[in-house]
């Protein structure tokens, strides 16, 4: 799974949470919680969805690393890489 696949997966899961937001229009380096108007419950659902879909269990301590789209993709890519090794 490359970065593009991960980005696609992340976007799809975010879209499930906030279907009315146009993800193409958001700043990939901006705060998702602001851009998507998501709260802690939405964010937890997003983390759950990533866990189910990609098998990456993201601890609470790492949540801050996933608050941007770019950050989330990079973080998941790194975690998937380490799993493979």
């Amino acid at each position, binding site marked *: 799974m490359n970065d593009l696949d991960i980005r696609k997966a992340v976007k799809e899961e975010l879209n499930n949470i*906030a*279907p*009315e*937001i146009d993800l193409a229009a958001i700043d990939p380096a901006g705060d998702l*919680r*602001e851009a*998507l*108007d998501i*709260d*802690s*419950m939405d964010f*937890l*659902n997003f*983390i*759950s969805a*990533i*866990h189910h879909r990609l098998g990456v*269990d*993201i*601890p*609470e*301590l790492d949540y801050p690393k996933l608050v941007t789209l770019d950050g989330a993709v990079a973080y998941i890519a790194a975690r998937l890489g380490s799993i493979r090794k």
Partner: protein
Amino acid sequence: MAEFRMPSLGADMEAGTLVEWLVKPGDRVKRGDIVAVVETQKGAIEIEIFEAGKIEQILVGLNTNVPVGTPLARIQTEREEAAGTVATAPSPAAPVALSAAPPSILAPVAPPSPPAPPPAAVARRRVSPAARRLAGAQGIDLSIVTASGPAGAIIYADVERRLGGAVADAEKKRAPGLDLDAMRTAIAAAMARSKREIPHYYLEHQVDVTVSEQWLTQKNAVRPPDERLLIGALMVRSVALAARRFPAFNGFYRDGKFEPSRAVHVGVAIAIRGGGLAAPALHDADQIQLDELMTRMRDLVQRTRAGRIRSSEISDPTITVTSLGERGVETLYGIIYPPQVAILGFGKVVRRPWVIDGAIGPRSIVTMTLSADHRVSDGHAGALFLAEIGMLLQEPDKL
């Protein structure tokens, strides 16, 4: 023979539109089964049944707007079945009049004047056939369409206008049960009534939740995401337990008197992107364990944002909790949702210098507020109630 009627999903609800039947004649139902979906100002609501038995006859077709109390289906109850009672078919009670509508359809114009139409036995919302067909086909709730036709009738163009709004970009992708304009109308009605009728008093209390946060961090560190807890669950649980001990804040004020509720159904205020708000009930929040409560809260939030709230969740809350979350502000003062008598507000958790054991240190502080109905309780009781919630919130192990 029992009748399943259009439920009242709030004091401001006059009518609902039946948009989906989930049962058909001959189906067996039991108490709590979801049997129909009704479109109201609050969105699409799944309606539960409170009789066990067999669906005898469906009385109201799809996309029909009927007043609260209108029989929707007839049910042969289990008792009748056991007794072998032959189902008699009483004619359904006439729907109650929604409003007194003017009797004339057309002003007399050309001589001779057209004979006046017979006085309507039942005054009801006037919807032209064309408008009704378009609304049905497009799933538009007629109760939220502004009428511009003769004699106050909703006409085709009115539904088209509504449809135009409904297919605006953001709306297009929104869950079908959510209509933010309608929801705004419902909020406006409820909040205006609250501020008009309920003498609110407000209390504020700050609580150190450092320990609870640490407790949550420890718990969540070893749990998969599906089982993790949020501090919001602790807040709801604390309020539920305290409400059981302070009945003056849990129940309904109706017809000039307070009716305390034995059960504690905590309404959870849920913001909906784009400007909506709903506060459906977490049933028996005082009776269930924290993990269960968290699971149900997640389900409730997801369903609410997807426009699938159940009827009992809409009508049952006995007290409400509102929290603006981590991106919110420190303090909020809630407006009571009538006919409830109290609402608890939680601000965001902030790091603050705090005196503890004679020394100043950084702690996580949350500001809680209580808005309560002064017809039912006084500040003294409110202060004890709020303090109790604060105590509970600091002892997560006991929740």
